[in-house]
């Protein structure tokens, strides 16, 4: 068994860096943050024991620079690197560079990342392990002619995905042959800039698919468990927005079957540490293996809340060479957990990014509420990185109480300075289909946009508040003519008054 780590470098930023740094502090392990120029005073830097600069704002010049991250680990004498998710988390070259440098990469071995990271080889391995996969191509496609030929064979609608993909980047749903070329161009361009690899593969698009994933954990001693499922069907742009566990869709039999399939693939791949197997389910509830994410998942807190397992600490313990402290039969799902991803995006303007400074922030608390946030009041949400600001997670004895608790927390949550996805959750958490568990990946496209019929908006309170604020500010400007109020229509008014007198 390896020795305990004394110091871990966290090769990430934002809420996930904060999450890992918190786990390190609880375990008595020193943490080392890395930061780009725009993140000098970011929350992960403030919370870490040490912080090292790794370059300019652009991720390609900082958080994606393997050499600089390794240099920072060496300079700080860290023994291990936790990659979080995104950035270098599923980069086999990075894991390999850690291994070469004598650093422990907290995750699977680099050959496993290569095997599962190439989505088509993962599909081939899954078939060999006896998992059902979505019909499509088992080899990556590198040119338009091959894409056209395979698309004709599979038929429309189909999904076009980056072979090196993940996180919804380089992914397009193609309804008909006419859309294929432009979708392929866009997907390949996105894949090239996100992964440096523009090869794609095709899958048949399932009708109203649901996205259910299985959390797995494996140690270096051949022990493998699954930690049940997460339901992730509420998505926009193929990225998850709301996740929960248990899935309202799964029966105990189906859950056990999917868990067994996941464990079979993990064993076949010789996988170690935390991972997630994503499945799509069609209307007949038949699960199809989609891909494996060889890292900690954004939505890992819902699993933590229902299983009572701290996945980040467990990742660190496994990387230290420890055995899994429990067997499959020791694990149970208790109660229900829901996560809402608070993105710096405007849900009423097609989820356009809304970076900027957080002028004011009120975070909910109280029973059963957890807020994993990368920011505090006064912080800047830079435009250079993923727009995830925070993950709000609620636990309840059952699904209905978890939903009620989440609605209460969303109501308490206030963010000014940037737009966030918070108003969207109010709509989702009231939606009759969501409440009944009738959800699929097109849920938001069908009903997430704009105000819903029958939705009661307290617009009169909003108008009264704005009018009183304007009234109060105008009075303040009148008593002190030099003081011009806020940048609004009132500035003009104030000036006119200051110049033109009291009319």
């Amino acid at each position, binding site marked *: 068994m390896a020795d305990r780590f004394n110091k871990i470098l966290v090769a990430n930023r934002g809420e996930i860096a904060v999450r890992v740094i918190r786990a390190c502090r609880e375990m008595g392990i020193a943490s080392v943050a890395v930061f780009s120029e725009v993140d000098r005073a970011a929350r992960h830097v403030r919370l870490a024991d040490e912080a090292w600069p790794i370059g300019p704002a652009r991720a390609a010049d900082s958080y994606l620079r393997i050499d600089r991250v390794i240099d920072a680990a060496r300079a700080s004498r860290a023994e291990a690197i936790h990659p979080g998710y995104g950035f270098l988390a599923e980069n086999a070259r990075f894991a390999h560079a850690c291994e070469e440098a004598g650093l422990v990469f907290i995750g699977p071995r680099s050959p496993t990342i290569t095997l599962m990271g190439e989505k088509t080889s993962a599909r081939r391995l899954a078939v060999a392990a006896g998992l059902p996969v979505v019909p499509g191509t088992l080899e990556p496609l590198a040119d338009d002619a091959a894409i056209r030929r395979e698309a004709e064979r599979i038929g429309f609608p189909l999904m076009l995905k980056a072979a090196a993909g993940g996180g919804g980047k380089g992914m397009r749903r193609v309804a008909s042959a006419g859309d294929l070329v432009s979708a392929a161009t866009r997907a390949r361009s996105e894949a090239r800039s996100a992964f440096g690899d523009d090869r794609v593969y095709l899958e048949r698009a399932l009708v109203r698919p649901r996205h259910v994933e299985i959390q797995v954990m494996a140690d270096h001693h051949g022990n493998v468990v699954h930690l049940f499922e997460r339901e992730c069907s509420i998505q926009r742009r193929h990225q998850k927005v709301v996740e929960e566990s248990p899935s309202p869709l799964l029966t105990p039999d189906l859950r056990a079957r999917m868990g067994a399939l996941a464990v079979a693939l993990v064993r076949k791949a010789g996988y170690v540490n935390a991972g997630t197997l994503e499945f799509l389910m069609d209307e007949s509830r038949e699960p199809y293996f989609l891909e494996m994410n060889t890292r900690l998942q954004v939505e890992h807190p819902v699993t933590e809340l229902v299983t009572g397992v701290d996945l980040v600490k467990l990742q660190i313990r496994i990387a230290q060479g420890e055995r899994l402290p429990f067997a499959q039969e020791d694990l149970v799902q208790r109660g229900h957990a829901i996560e809402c991803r608070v993105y710096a995006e405007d849900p009423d303007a097609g989820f356009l990014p809304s970076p900027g400074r957080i002028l004011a922030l009120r975070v909910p608390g109280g029973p059963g509420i957890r807020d994993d946030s990368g920011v505090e009041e006064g912080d800047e949400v830079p435009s250079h990185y993923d727009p995830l600001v925070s993950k709000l997670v609620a636990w309840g004895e059952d699904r209905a109480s978890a939903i009620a608790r989440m609605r209460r927390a969303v*109501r308490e949550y206030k963010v000014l300075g940037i737009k966030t996805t918070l108003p969207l959750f109010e709509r989702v958490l009231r939606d009759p289909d969501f409440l009944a568990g009738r959800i699929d990946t097109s849920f938001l496209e069908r009903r997430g946009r704009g105000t819903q019929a029958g939705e009661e908006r307290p617009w009169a309170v909003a108008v009264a508040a704005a009018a009183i*604020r304007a009234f109060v500010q105008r009075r303040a400007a009148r008593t002190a003519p030099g003081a011009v109020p806020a940048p609004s229509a009132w500035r003009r008014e104030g000036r006119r008054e200051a110049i033109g007198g009291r009319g």
Partner: protein
Amino acid sequence: MILDAAVDGQAHRVEVTGGKGRYTVAIDGRPLEVDWREAGGPFVSLLVGGRSHHVALEPRPGGYRVLVESHDFAVDLLETTLDAAVARRGPTGPARLVAPMPGRIVRVSAEPGQEVEAGQGLVVMEAMKMENELRAPRAGRVAEVHVREWQTVETGALLVVVE
């Protein structure tokens, strides 16, 4: 003070009277008695007929962004006639497509002189690792194109003008 307010696509006539934390706000002639307490920074506690509201106000061009419970409102205010408020919002003249966020221009598919449909994609911008297609605000002819591919732009930068 009499104001023209617009919220959720509806125009309202608003009159505010009172002072020292107690106001009467008449919206389209229906009065609301409002007890108003500043609650730190942009936050205000309102009691309206005994109902408690935790409200946040953020200045924005033309008015305020107002958060009430989980709802997000854009309230436009103008202390002039209703006619002026309508004229200010009116869709006459050239339509300007501006950058909704800072980012990088990935593709420009609009050319000066080109006829475009409302909603037709004109520019693709990359921000926060995603490509976002920006569409024509209305049908017409492309009069000006102000950006080129790979250029970095700030929020509000003029991209394309459609006549």
